[in-house]
């Protein structure tokens, strides 16, 4: 099964919510829509579901033009970020509802709902109402309703965003298995780059109503086509700074320069933007690392990682390292760039060398 968007544009009044977008999604693995809040993920999902109609362009499902077709007639299911269930129905009836509407026989409904509830560990809750469930169970009910329908297109709009950390991890591990071998195109919207990496498959990075890149997730991560994609696909945010290439060296700042090796060596001299993911900026220098003299502004400690925001030459940088590193806020500190992880972008933002 395939879902294809052809030159789809969505305008509301004078605002363009989705700029011309063409995309072809297949059923192999998850298709992740990655972008910050307001990037247009939900709008794109609504367009795919038929809840909104594109201003221009076509939507094809399995080659058939479904543009303008109502969501009821499309073969699609949808899970929202908020736990949306029918409050007046029991969990069983909630899961059964798409089958009831489709006039599936009672015995078949019992079998399929039972199976799905089993899969999502909801069997003991079947008689309860959604309001009597925990958040995780409510979202599992919503997922069960999407699974039981056996639709060709499953849209998951940040389904884990409102769950607490532990439940999120648990469900995230389960999700790819739940949808494997169902022959459905699965679209998963998220604002977290780590989620995209964990789910694998393909990723479309979105920014300001545009898809900046679409491809296999690791490729989009390692070789972002442009600075925008790299910015979307980095958490903590990627460090970007203007550099100049002269005489085979990259100059970042007074006395901060390194020799241009790898792909950038072949590029002509001139101005570039360097993108360095925070985990390539660490407080410990390795072989050939470039020293930055910074002043620590903010630190964040998680159990296994230390993140420091520091100021260097009027620009805020982010460093991320394993282990707990004792930073002192306000104090000067040396940081080191592992230049093998540098991405170079041209004046137009396009990737020059990775």
């Amino acid at each position: 099964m395939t879902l294809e968007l052809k030159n789809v544009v969505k305008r509301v009044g004078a605002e363009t919510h989705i700029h011309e977008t063409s995309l072809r999604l297949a059923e192999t693995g998850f298709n992740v829509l990655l972008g910050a809040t307001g990037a247009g993920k939900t709008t794109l999902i609504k367009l795919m579901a038929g809840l909104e109609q594109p201003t221009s362009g076509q939507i094809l499902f399995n080659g058939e033009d479904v543009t303008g077709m109502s969501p009821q007639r499309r073969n699609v299911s949808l899970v929202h970020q908020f736990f949306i269930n029918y409050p007046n129905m029991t969990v069983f009836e909630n899961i059964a509802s798409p089958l009831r509407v489709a006039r599936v026989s009672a015995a078949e409904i019992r079998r399929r709902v039972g199976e799905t509830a089993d899969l999502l560990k909801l069997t003991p809750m079947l008689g309860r109402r959604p309001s009597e469930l925990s958040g995780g169970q409510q979202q599992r009910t919503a997922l069960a309703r999407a699974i039981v329908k056996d639709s060709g297109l499953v849209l998951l709009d940040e389904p884990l965003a409102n769950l607490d950390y532990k439940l999120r991890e648990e469900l995230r591990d389960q999700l790819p298995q739940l949808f494997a071998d169902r022959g459905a195109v699965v679209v998963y919207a998220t604002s977290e780059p780590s989620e995209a990496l964990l789910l694998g498959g393909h990723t479309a990075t979105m920014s300001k109503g545009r898809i900046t890149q679409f491809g296999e997730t690791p490729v989009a991560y390692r070789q972002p086509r442009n600075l925008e994609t790299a910015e979307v696909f980095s958490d903590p945010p990627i460090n970007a700074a203007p550099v100049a290439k002269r005489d085979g060296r990259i100059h970042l700042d007074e006395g901060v320069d390194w020799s241009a090796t790898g792909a950038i060596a072949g590029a002509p001299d001139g101005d570039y933007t360097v993108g360095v993911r925070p985990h390539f900026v660490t407080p410990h220098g390795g072989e050939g690392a470039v020293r930055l003299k910074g002043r620590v502004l903010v630190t964040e400690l998680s159990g296994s990682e230390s993140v420091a925001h520091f100021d260097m030459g009027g620009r805020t940088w982010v460093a991320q390292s394993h282990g707990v590193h004792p930073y002192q806020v306000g104090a000067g500190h040396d940081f080191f760039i592992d230049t093998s992880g540098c991405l170079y972008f041209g004046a137009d933002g396009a990737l020059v060398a990775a």
Partner: protein
Amino acid sequence: MRRIIPFAPALYILFLMLPIYWLLNMSFKTTNEILGGFSLWPNEFTLDNYRTIFTDPTWYMGYVNSLIYVSINTTISVAAALPAAYAFSRYRFLGDKHLFFWLLTNRMAPPAVFALPFFQLYSAVELFDTHIAVALAHALFNIPLAVWILEGFMSGVPKELDETAYVDGYSFPRFFFRIFMPTIKAGIGVAAFFCFMFSWVELLLAKTLTAVEAKPIAATMTKTASSAGYELGLLAAAGCLTIIPGAFVIYFVRNYIAKGFALGRV
């Protein structure tokens, strides 16, 4: 001072209940005893007043008429307000906010303003002295109220619920009746309650628009000055019976009203 404070609520309740007690008290007295002197309880306890009301059609038909037009009004108001409130809560259209406010302003005018035009209009179309006439007249201020209450409840339901239902295959009517209305049943209960109450206590329009066939109980009560003088006992009994439907309805929707207050719309 400290000694008095615990009695304050008791005192308040006492004053609150006093007129109702006095009404009840009078309803069990004969008119002669009421006019004869002051007594805290009926000396000659009688059920005659109530007996008269339940046997004399001019009396009990007042209740029947009132209940008929109140029921019609509640049904019309809620039925008309449901789709209107849905539109206000779900769609943005030209002038929606102004229209919403304008609807509410209908409640601000005293009913007396509308008495004359209604009287003239209904006489012209031969609706005068019918239940539907009163029910429609009351809809003038009940529909805006119901729209306003229901819009609050509906806006509390996320739009994603509608979308989920459409994606699941529900048609709009099926979604509206099977999922949406049960979801906001508290709101429907509260709206129906207020329509019922306002229609039940409204006297001026009901009296102006009826003569015999659809005469409401409140109008019957104002015409008790008979050739035998005022029948105060009868009047008191009728008053007691008038309180009952309201109390009955309040009992059933009390939890919903609390919810309505929590949502900030009542």
